[in-house]
């Protein structure tokens, strides 16, 4: 297969950046999207040009490092997959493919397709955990947890923190990311103890990091590689209102 790539190149945070065209040829259908970029980078390197910088690590959809907007969609055309799980068989031979970094004020560009997502770390630091020191835990089976609750908590806990939700949102809202963490911990007795302070603090941190508000467009769920449901956003809103009334 052959493709015409249009890739965002930007030297550093200060550079203005531009789209650059590259032709890639004779790519097998079983090649992954990032492997295609690897092949292109190898060609660029041997031609003495700087390869395209992009974040990636595990290449199996779990670390959350890869982060490309492909043809205008965060993580590209697949459903429930990350960029690194995308195979070239999903594209038409001869297609023009547009590759851009995550969008959003809270995700400033570092270089080419690499963005700074530390805003997400700061949101978690504001309360995305259970405050329990090592060694103070009781026996694990002391508190039974209904299987349904544990399963639902796991649905939310699967979030890989890639940022696609915020990158896809026209308001750059990080609501699905925050809702997933709050929802996961709220569903478990261990996490419920500090639910109120957690909700307030995490939402405050989200605003402070420059993420926008949610207007229920549900783009986030559509691009989430773990298909985390927007129902968790509804739950977050309920939790938030309760936190406001009580605190």
């Amino acid at each position, binding site marked *: 297969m052959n493709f015409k790539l249009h890739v965002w190149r930007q030297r550093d945070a200060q550079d203005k950046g531009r789209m650059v065209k590259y032709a890639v040829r004779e790519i097998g259908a079983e090649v992954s999207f990032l492997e295609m970029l690897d092949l292109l980078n190898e060609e660029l*390197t*041997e031609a003495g040009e700087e390869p395209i910088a992009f974040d990636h690590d595990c290449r199996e959809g779990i670390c959350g490092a890869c982060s490309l907007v492909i043809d205008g969609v965060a993580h590209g055309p697949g459903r429930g997959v990350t960029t690194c799980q995308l195979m070239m068989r999903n594209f038409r031979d001869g297609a023009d493919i547009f590759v851009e970094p995550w969008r959003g004020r809270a995700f400033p560009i570092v270089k080419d397709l690499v963005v700074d997502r530390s805003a*997400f770390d700061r949101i978690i630091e504001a309360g995305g955990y259970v405050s329990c020191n090592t060694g103070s*835990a009781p026996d694990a089976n002391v508190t039974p947890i209904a299987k349904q609750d544990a399963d639902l908590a796991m649905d939310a806990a699967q979030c890989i*923190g890639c940022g696609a939700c915020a990158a896809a949102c026209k308001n750059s809202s990080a609501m699905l990311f925050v809702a997933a963490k709050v929802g996961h911990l709220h569903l478990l007795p*261990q996490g419920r103890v500090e639910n109120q302070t957690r909700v307030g603090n995490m939402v405050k941190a989200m605003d402070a990091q420059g993420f926008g508000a949610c207007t229920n467009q549900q783009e986030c769920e559509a691009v989430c590689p773990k298909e985390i449901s927007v129902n968790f956003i509804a739950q977050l809103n309920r939790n938030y209102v309760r936190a406001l009334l009580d605190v």
Partner: protein
Amino acid sequence: MNLDAHIPAGALETKWQRYKSTLPLVSPANKRRFKIIVVGSGLAGSSAAATLAELGYAVECFCFQDSPRRAHSIAAQGGINAARNYQGDGDSVFRLFYDTVKGGDFRAREANVYRLAEISGAIIDQCVAQGVPFAREYGGMLANRSFGGAQVSRTFYARGQTGQQLLLGAYGALARQIALGKVTMHARHEMLDLIVVAGRARGIVVRDLVSGTLRSCCADAVVLATGGYANVFFLSTNAMGCNVTATYRAHKRGAGFANPCFTQIHPTCIPVSGEHQAKLTLMSESLRNDGRVWVPTKKGDRRAPHEIPEAERDYYLERRYPAFGNLSPRDIASRAALQVCNDGYGVGRSGMGVYLDFAEAMQRLGQDVIEQRYGNLFSMYEEITGEDPYRTPMRIFPAAHYTMGGLWVDYNLMSNLDGLFVIGEANFSDHGANRLGASALMQGLADGYFVLPYTIGQYLAAAPVLDKSAAEKTAAQTQQECQQSIAALLNIKGKRSVDYFHRRLGKIMWDNCGMARSAASLQQALQAIPQLQEEFQRDLRVPGGGASLNQSLEKAGRVADFLDFAQLMCRDALAREESCGGHFRTEYQTAEGEAQRNDAEFTHVSVWQHRAAGEPQLHREPLQFSHVALAQRSYK
């Protein structure tokens, strides 16, 4: 080289408890005056950094990823072992200890392994308290499943994403300490060297991967939690960034490297599809709970799997190892797969694959149960191969996955360099020559949550106060050396990319020091690698400069270390003239093709000392077994 393991006296069962209660303490007021560096933020690094900060130490934590949450522990799928006997199936601390020692083919320290088994339960408690959503039964109790090398169900899991959930728990604990100002986190920073002052680890040199700036960070103790080196094979299940640089550079500064030839080849991975491939994908071992492994009984049988009748299938694991069957340990299952493929029975286009078949389990349990247990793994398989494993058996083949070898540490997890602690996969301590499934997560968290936080106090309580000016002087010197080696890589200005060399190194290692090794193949590798290294130094091209984000430069530094390290691995494999666990020397096998240990000569840890000129020197730490009888490992 001093290889005293400092194993406390007393009965095996009470050693750790007694030792803990006699360790010297650091008073709370003094703890904050001690600065501890933790390199790496996986299960071991995050849990250690968080716990040390909770205790009151001043912690600086470094990782090369853009967030500590992305360390490669996140990709562990199947589960974590703990001797809780919640299933009432006869499990106990002793049994977990015994399975681990036996699984490791009697090449691990009894005292360390016993401690690990003893701590395992507390890890589950801790993780549940953090809100890790482990799988549960309808009554609300924790669920368990079985893993290779065990006849009890002691593996706790969170779907096929156990590593992710445990790491997010530890990352949460770390995030809390960052918010409290007790941990300073440095993401996108890579350790380039260890600062050693008068035989003591006193800090590290790091490169800020965004700005390219080098800087030194001095401390009272350094903890390496930098993972394993399976990427020496280029193709492995490790993340692309996993590397040996931190441990290898510490080794060059004097830390002994133990058993580098002990590498684990995981039996259930998706087979290689072509030259372009950058990494291999693991299919969790948990699949072997319900999947049956088979190949056709006829050589070169190219029929589709459903066209091959039952009578013409060879369920070779069930046939050869009836007691453990499809749940045989990883080294045995991998070797058996290689053997049937080499004999011409392999399936798939390349003939390098075997079937993992769920048809029988789906009939027995129904598709919905299989979907619940393995849904995410099945969809991952389908995305990559384009085949639906609910309808046709998976094709799998072994791939490099984990490394049991690592920096040598004593019972306190301290290397032979004072003040340098090594935890998790980066050390060599607990898995001997083969790690059992679901034991990596257990060891990483045991080290980080429950061992290091005690033992490091003992060192700090007695260590001389950090001489800042001496440390800074050495730091400046070390930093300068790092700067020079970066400049050297940039100045080669050859024609070939880093990946070109890495791929070739990987092939040399896989062919000659992989699942089966021989003196001849190892000697061949030891000739080929220096030639490749010479070519690397002549023909490498690293575009761009050193003063900005430069992913080619990062890789170049790592591959330069892999080229050096690969030779150490081969040397170690050559020196160990026996087969044990993941180390299979074709010259040493039983008539049935099983690994043949040589206990009389090799019941020891091989520890290598770096020498500036000449070959590395081999030292030995003898292993003593008083609670487990050394026996031929049998899973029949």
